[in-house]
């Protein structure tokens, strides 16, 4: 086992670098070796920033040698979905078209903040084209592959982010989540993923998809890594107009606080049908461990999901209108055809869908008066096969690409914070995730519950045993 995987978590790496057990250079070299060896199988990385990473490692080692205090993530490798700007790289956002653009002249805010905390950027990651995807497949760069079964999807659109983390290529990755693009791949690849509250983390320096719903967040194999990276990335940024003016509210200090005082329920209705038995069994397991004995039903969730779907179609189409007109042949056909359909929808539909958003937010806020945490499946099934186009849910054949996010979409619609936790069943080689959902601005709470589940061994995120 290499140093890169012996030190499984970002915080373990930080401790080893701080104590002198390992140098940042050794960590980076081991990480780059592992990426070189395994990336051809996983399709996780599209760019590897080896020179930059080695320079950053040297700076950290020099800082330690001078006796300086190291950052909270010092020496921990991380990578970013390739819609994040990285100095010197073209921000492709999973597309062919964007490769004509000039390389980025500055890092995205969140990448810069992780590096300011001592983390080391090792590359950019594969993703579904323009993030309009739940599969992790990419027509131009090939699919990202699930480290627990290379024949299967990672989920998307942050597929490379999940493959890198679950494959042990990096302990930490950043992704984006508009309708579920962190939570779906975290579920299918068996790792933890945090979608913070809408407006919590700056989106500056990333390529957008649906401004109304776009979120950024981390994926990791431990809850403490999620919390540490989330804490490092908080803070105001005038370059994102949707960002909150709230103060920094770190989650790490209360992470070991346990479940005391928390009222936890599972979501019924929409969230208890339309999936395979494995999805609901995973919720049963988590709910049982948390002592959540009752279910509540949110009103009109089917309509809420429908509204998110329509807003996504229309805002996505508006973003790409010029490219659809001038460069249609260069899109992934599956993405292009959805965008073209979105361009044809009546404006009144999307305005009403936005009205429904505010209405649904109020109904869910009422539910949170009686409960502190809600549980729901993250995906309706375990990872489908790469190339599979349809699945059968509740006896109805449906397209996979738009429907893997069936259970995530209503939650991001109203911007709630969610941590996806990975559940394994004995004798089954593939994981499936559960969403731990909190009220707005309570990332600390969802991470605290996720950590309690991890500590009790109910959820875990092992590195995939690659063939």
């Amino acid at each position, binding site marked *: 086992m290499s140093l890169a995987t012996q030190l499984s978590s970002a915080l373990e790496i930080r401790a080893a670098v701080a104590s002198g057990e390992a140098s940042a250079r050794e960590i980076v070299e081991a990480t780059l070796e592992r990426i070189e060896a395994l990336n051809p199988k996983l399709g996780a990385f599209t760019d590897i920033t080896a020179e930059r990473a080695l320079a950053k490692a040297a700076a950290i080692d020099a800082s330690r040698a001078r006796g300086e205090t190291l950052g909270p993530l010092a020496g921990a490798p991380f990578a970013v979905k390739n819609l994040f700007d990285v100095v010197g790289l073209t921000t492709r956002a999973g597309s062919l078209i964007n490769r004509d653009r000039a390389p980025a002249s500055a890092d995205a805010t969140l990448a810069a903040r992780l590096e300011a905390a001592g983390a080391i950027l090792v590359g950019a990651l594969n993703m579904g084209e323009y993030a309009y995807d739940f599969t992790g497949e990419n027509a131009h760069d090939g699919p990202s592959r699930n480290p627990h079964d290379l024949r299967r999807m990672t989920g998307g659109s942050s597929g490379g982010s999940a493959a890198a983390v679950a494959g042990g290529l990096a302990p930490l990755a950043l992704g984006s989540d508009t309708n579920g693009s962190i939570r779906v791949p975290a579920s299918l690849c068996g790792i933890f993923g945090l979608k913070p509250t809408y407006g919590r983390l700056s989106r500056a320096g990333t390529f957008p998809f649906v*401004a109304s719903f776009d979120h950024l967040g981390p994926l990791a194999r431990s809850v403490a890594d999620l919390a540490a990276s989330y804490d490092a990335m908080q803070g105001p940024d005038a370059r994102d107009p949707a960002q909150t003016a709230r103060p920094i509210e770190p989650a790490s200090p209360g992470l070991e606080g346990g479940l005391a005082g928390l009222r936890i329920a599972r979501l019924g209705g929409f969230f208890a049908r339309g999936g395979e038995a494995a999805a609901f069994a995973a919720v049963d397991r988590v709910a049982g461990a948390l002592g959540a004995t009752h279910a509540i039903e949110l009103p*009109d969730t089917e309509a809420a999901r429908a*509204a998110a779907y329509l807003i996504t179609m229309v805002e996505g189409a508006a973003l790409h209108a010029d490219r659809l007109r001038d460069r249609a042949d260069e899109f992934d056909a599956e993405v292009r055809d959805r965008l073209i359909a979105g361009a044809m929808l009546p404006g009144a539909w999307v305005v009403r869908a936005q009205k429904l958003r505010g209405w649904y937010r109020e109904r869910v806020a009422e539910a949170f008066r009686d409960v502190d945490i809600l549980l729901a499946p993250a995906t309706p099934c375990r990872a489908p096969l790469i190339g599979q186009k349809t699945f059968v849910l509740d006896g109805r054949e449906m397209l996979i690409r738009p429907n893997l996010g069936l259970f995530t979409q209503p939650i991001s619609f109203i911007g709630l914070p969610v941590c996806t936790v990975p559940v394994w069943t004995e004798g089954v080689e593939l994981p499936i995730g559960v969403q731990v959902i909190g009220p707005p601005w309570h990332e600390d709470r969802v991470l605290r519950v996720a950590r309690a589940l991890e500590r009790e061994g109910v959820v875990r995120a092992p590195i995939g045993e690659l063939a």
Partner: protein
Amino acid sequence: MTKFEFDADRLIEASLPLLGVQLAETSHAAVKLHLETAERLWRSVRDVPLDDVAEPAPVFTA
């Protein structure tokens, strides 16, 4: 009351010149399927009663 049937083919035909988009023959069926899905989903959005004063602004605070 007149009952209107959603006709995705007519919508595609009418929209393409307005959008300035060329649609390959091979894409027609996929675009039609996405429009029919959207229309089905729209019906569930339409059926939730909302006040005239309900806020439609897309700038949203969770």
